[in-house]
């Protein structure tokens, strides 16, 4: 397992706050610098939650323009990176809900075989995982991307998603169960959903939990 991808989270939170203050004071470069500090991580979250670069670009742009405008609302009771991720994830959710349907894929439940290491390259394996992520309801995808892909703690993810920690754990568990079914060759029972977690044929990303 690779180490958590902390990126800008390890950066100087005080610098982030100072950049917000400078932005509000009229410094036109401050917000751009703030974006530069966080853009890669925000991009990864959007891309992996939404599943395609076009949507991710739209969501990130919408989110950062909103953040630019609403920086005065930043209260400082959370880290700037938490605030920015919250806005980006909300933009992703909004985008999917506005469209009321997720991007269609040809993948059926259980149709993604977990690639053997001697058959698929790491890149191909990663692509299989990304394809499987696209099969998840958007709320589950966002949670599992933040926790398992980006290395945020459950508490941090709860703050970003503005849901209780128990909800984050539940969403992550559901997501991992679905993904394991999509990626694994576990026999007839392995890929089936449990009785209390039905997988509807039309269970798509627009459906809130």
């Amino acid at each position, binding site marked *: *397992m*690779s180490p*958590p991808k902390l990126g800008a989270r390890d950066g100087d939170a005080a610098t982030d706050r*100072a950049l917000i*203050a400078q*932005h*509000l*004071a*009229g410094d036109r470069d401050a917000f751009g610098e703030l*974006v530069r500090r966080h*853009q*890669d991580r*925000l*991009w990864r979250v959007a891309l992996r939650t939404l599943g395609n*670069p076009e949507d*991710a670009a739209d969501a*990130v*742009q919408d989110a*950062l*323009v*909103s953040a*630019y*405008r*609403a920086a*005065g*609302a930043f*209260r400082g*009771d959370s880290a700037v990176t938490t605030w920015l991720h919250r*806005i980006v994830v*909300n*933009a992703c959710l*909004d985008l999917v809900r506005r469209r009321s349907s997720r991007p269609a894929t040809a993948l059926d439940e259980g149709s993604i075989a*977990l690639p053997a290491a001697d058959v698929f390259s*790491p*890149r191909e394996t*990663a692509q299989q*995982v*990304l394809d499987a992520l696209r099969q998840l309801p958007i709320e589950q995808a966002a949670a*599992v*991307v933040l926790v*398992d*892909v980006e290395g945020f703690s459950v508490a941090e993810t709860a703050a970003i998603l503005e849901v209780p920690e128990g909800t984050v*754990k539940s969403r*992550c*568990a*559901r*997501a*991992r*169960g*679905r*993904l*394991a079914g999509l*990626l*694994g060759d*576990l026999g007839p*029972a*392995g890929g089936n*959903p*449990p009785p*209390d977690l039905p997988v509807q044929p039309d269970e798509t990303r627009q459906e809130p939990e």
Partner: protein
Amino acid sequence: MTAPENHLDLAAAAALDEGLEVDDGLRAHAASCEECGRRLAAVRTTRALLSALPDETMPQAVVDRLHEALPREPVLTTIVPSGGRRRRWTSSPALAGIIAAAAALALVAAISIGSLRSSGHNSSGGAGAENGAATFPRVPSTNFPVLASGAKYNDNNARALVSSLDSLVRTPTSLAGGTTAQPGATQKDSVNSLSSQGPVPAKLRSLFGNRQELLACARLLAGGPVTPLAIDFSRFTGGQRHVRNAPAMIVLLPAVGGLRDSAFIVGPRCTTDPSQDFYLFVQAPARQ
């Protein structure tokens, strides 16, 4: 061998792996079941695959698009909630200016005739406020003016009203009409010496006399320890949700971290959540 239907399914395996509640019987079965062990392993493999996804950087085309888009956006002094369509202050500058000027005059007039009132708590001056110090005060104080102007704030007049309020508490000489500051008194002494018949909205009356609660509200809004410059109990009309006559507190905070004096206009819940009773954030104009 246990019947297949008694095995952990993948969702249950994931729940067990996450430490969530799982049926005790199933949990006990899984502890010694090879098939369940395989499914738990599959969940853990999935976690490993997720965490091993390669890092990616934002494509340069997206970076360029983003940095091209941002400078076109003016920095607003009012909050526009995500997806909001709030009419901007500048959308009709002439009309907005007239309305704001009238509203500001009304507020100053209200002050002049003594229609501002305090909650009866004399102030000896909030730390960090008198000289416009751009830092949080070391020790937040409950000594700050609490007013009830009766003014109706809205999107268009808020900046002018906040400016007037800021001038009032920052500049003793701005107090007019028989409310001259006494020698040696701070401007807030003068403000607090005013009596008023301005109405305090019913939903805010319990807060009006509770300075500890008001201080906690200011701290929440500022994100740190702060003595507000003043809190004006009034009403808010307009805004994102087109509220009418909503009970409102104008929490005027001192400049901090390069910001100017600024005011949060909030309801009884004292929140910055636009979906609740947060109405507006306004920065006062730079003082001369």
